[in-house]
């Protein structure tokens, strides 16, 4: 077994994801099978391979990544707040996090 019930609970907790008892067991079994399949990559020796951390070479985006840092007004605050679950302009209200 590649992944245990405790692993799934720990990972779901890291991801702030509530799972029911039945979801826990179903996902554990399915992810176990997927990890078993993914394990085939270990047959490949990649000792001297550099990881591919981005798709484009620097010269393809140099202009973009080095753009000037300029303020541009977007004027979307009203629209954004209008559809928020619990807005109180200019804020998003959330359950209390600070006790005093």
């Amino acid at each position: 077994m590649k992944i245990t019930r405790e692993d799934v609970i720990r990972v779901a907790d890291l991801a702030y994801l509530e799972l029911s008892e039945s979801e826990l067991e179903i996902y554990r079994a399915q992810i176990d099978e997927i990890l078993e399949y993914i394990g085939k990559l270990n047959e490949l020796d990649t000792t001297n391979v550099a990881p591919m951390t981005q798709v484009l070479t620097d010269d393809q985006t140099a202009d973009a990544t080095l753009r000037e840092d300029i303020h541009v007004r977007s004027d979307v605050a009203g629209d954004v707040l209008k559809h928020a679950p619990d807005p109180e302009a200019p804020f998003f209200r959330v359950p209390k996090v600070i006790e005093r």
Partner: protein
Amino acid sequence: MSTNWTIDTVKSALVAKKLSARELAADFFNRIDAQNPALNAYLTLSPERAYAQAEKIDALIAASKPLPPLAGVPVAIKDVLSTRGIRTTCGSKILENYFPAYDATAVERLESAGAVLLGKTNCDEFAMGSSNENSAYGPVKNPVALDRVPGGSSGGSAAVVAAGLAVASLGTDTGGSIRQPGALCGIPAMMGSYGRVSRYGLIAFASSLDRIGPFATNVYDVAAILQTIAGRDPRDSTSTTAQVPDYASEITKPVKGLRIGIPKDYFAEGMHSGVRAKVEAGIALLKSLGCELIDIRMPHTDCAIATYYIIATAEASSNLARYDGVRYGLRADDPTLLGMYRKTRGAGFGPEVKRRIVLGTYVLSAGYYDAYYLKGQKVRALIAQDFRDAFTKVDAIVTPTSPIPAFKLGEKTNDPLQMYLADIYTVTGSLAGVPGISVPCGKTPQENLPVGLQIFGPAFGEARVLQLAHAFEQAGGASL
């Protein structure tokens, strides 16, 4: 009234004043009302915005002013692309009431070119799936056979074009989500190179893989849509400054003498016999057009699915962290902030998304990062190298798009791994960042279902890909 519109026939009908852009849009909405209940391909219609745009086009025509290239062309947009003021759900309950405050660059560019936005199309939740059955709003039906899936994740965008309910549409492709539904619905469908089209306003699934691209009824229209949406956008730092060639003039160039790589690694066991027969006939057709066929090896092909499901789920687990119930979408009730996060995400995400968040978080977590994520990035480098090596010897690579034709609804829903394996021919190009198209390549003799031929080109070699696809189409590839 005709239902087989193309960009050219729309233009000539409007210019000849056979009908107005408004009448054309109304005709599409009428047919959508009649046919969409059976297909479930549109999630949201945008008649106000469509008619406002159509009236602008009609005013240009009335004033005999020059028309933009897509004037009056009715288009549909996958519901993972942001549309200002038009509900954008990503096929998820968590965004059931999300109204973006801005347009995706690709959407903005289509409308600037005169296109009329009919509405938003159904898709697998957050573009995660190969059958469209992971949508929180029910599956799309394949217009070719209503008891079968349209493919995914851009199933709605493929279905509306195949059914004549849009002239063209935009989808997104992370591991095959444009090309595979294009193949299963029998229409051309393309993803450009990574970096060719701005991802600004594309609601992210896996940022190093996600690409936006067109569906249309013919390759010329695919080229015209790609032309419109391609090119540098300062709002996406991964959109490239590389020049966008004029595809319309490139695609009519002769294909005689082009070297086509046939990777035998893609023709292993597991392929449907009807798909194999048609793809082999398609390759023979390319040969008859004067292309030179060259056997090549792409030795890391069988590692692609495993690599893809590490990289894509890892990036997804990070990207989907933003759905916390604070700023938009669903919020579940709980007296504590962390409890609210957990319940919101537990209630708002569907099974495939949860499974991928758990898997993606796991492969990134302490103790497993090197074994899975880093390993995946290394194998990805080898897969990209396979493509670079191949393109030193050939001009394009031809493969099947999908190992199987459209399958029955519900046939694979209980076995995620089997569903993932259906992406085997498409994920390689996704990982490598190269452009790819699927073009219709006949129908299976057994079930009379569409088969797709996939053509890959080198990075930023879209013109070559389109040129071959166009020649293949003109030579009768669709009726092989």
